């Protein structure tokens, strides 16, 4: 019987796959961004870029990918170096709260444009 602990890994293929799917989404966004970013840079061009519906859609997917990807990565880091269960749990919870908060801020930035 595997010792399954609450602050351990999520067993199975799900997180492994999520890390790779979100990585591909972020690479895709990077390619799109390099094509469409305004040259020369100006406030008008920058604002117009993020005012478009599809760009918000794509950036929303980017933010979601970053949150999931960063969570899995940071959780692995905590699991590798922090052995005390209470401290690890606190850091994992703080990571989630921090990332979700950042996600909310990103949404506010995008839909205010």
């Amino acid at each position, binding site marked *: 019987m595997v010792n399954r602990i609450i602050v351990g890994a999520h067993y199975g293929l799900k997180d492994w796959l999520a890390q790779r799917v979100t990585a591909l989404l972020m*690479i895709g966004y990077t390619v799109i961004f390099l094509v469409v970013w305004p040259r020369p840079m100006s406030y008008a061009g920058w604002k117009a870029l993020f005012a478009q519906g599809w760009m918000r859609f794509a950036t929303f997917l980017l933010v979601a990918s970053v949150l999931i990807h960063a969570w899995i990565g940071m959780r692995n880091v905590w699991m590798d170096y922090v052995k005390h269960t209470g401290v690890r749990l606190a850091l994992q919870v703080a990571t989630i709260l921090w990332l979700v908060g950042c996600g909310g801020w990103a949404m506010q930035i995008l839909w205010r*444009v």
Partner: protein
Amino acid sequence: MPDLTAKKKRPLWYNLSPLNLPVPGLVSIFHRVSGVVLFLGLIAFLYLLDLSLASESGYAQAAGVLRAPIAKLLVIASIWALLHHMCAGIRHLFLDVDVGTSLHTARRSAFAVFIASLALTASIAVRIW
């Protein structure tokens, strides 16, 4: 007949410092460190995105922040972290589908990750400085 239950005396060597970390190992630890750096830098990135999209004066303010030499250094460091993380990640995706898993190829691709991310960072650094 040999005694199979007797514990063999094995040499103990806890000092790992004489061992060299191979290049794929270096790519791996840099992948981890750059990932943590990007996680920590997320807040600065959001701050600048917020400022630059808020208003004309906010945009000018963000541009002003990025003109400071220390900010440029941080931006270049972040770009290196992002590019290394991305290149190492792409290499990882190929290894996941069993492409380039032989020792020789894996070492060469690890070298390529360092060279590509450093070269790209250098070319961007020259432009933004």
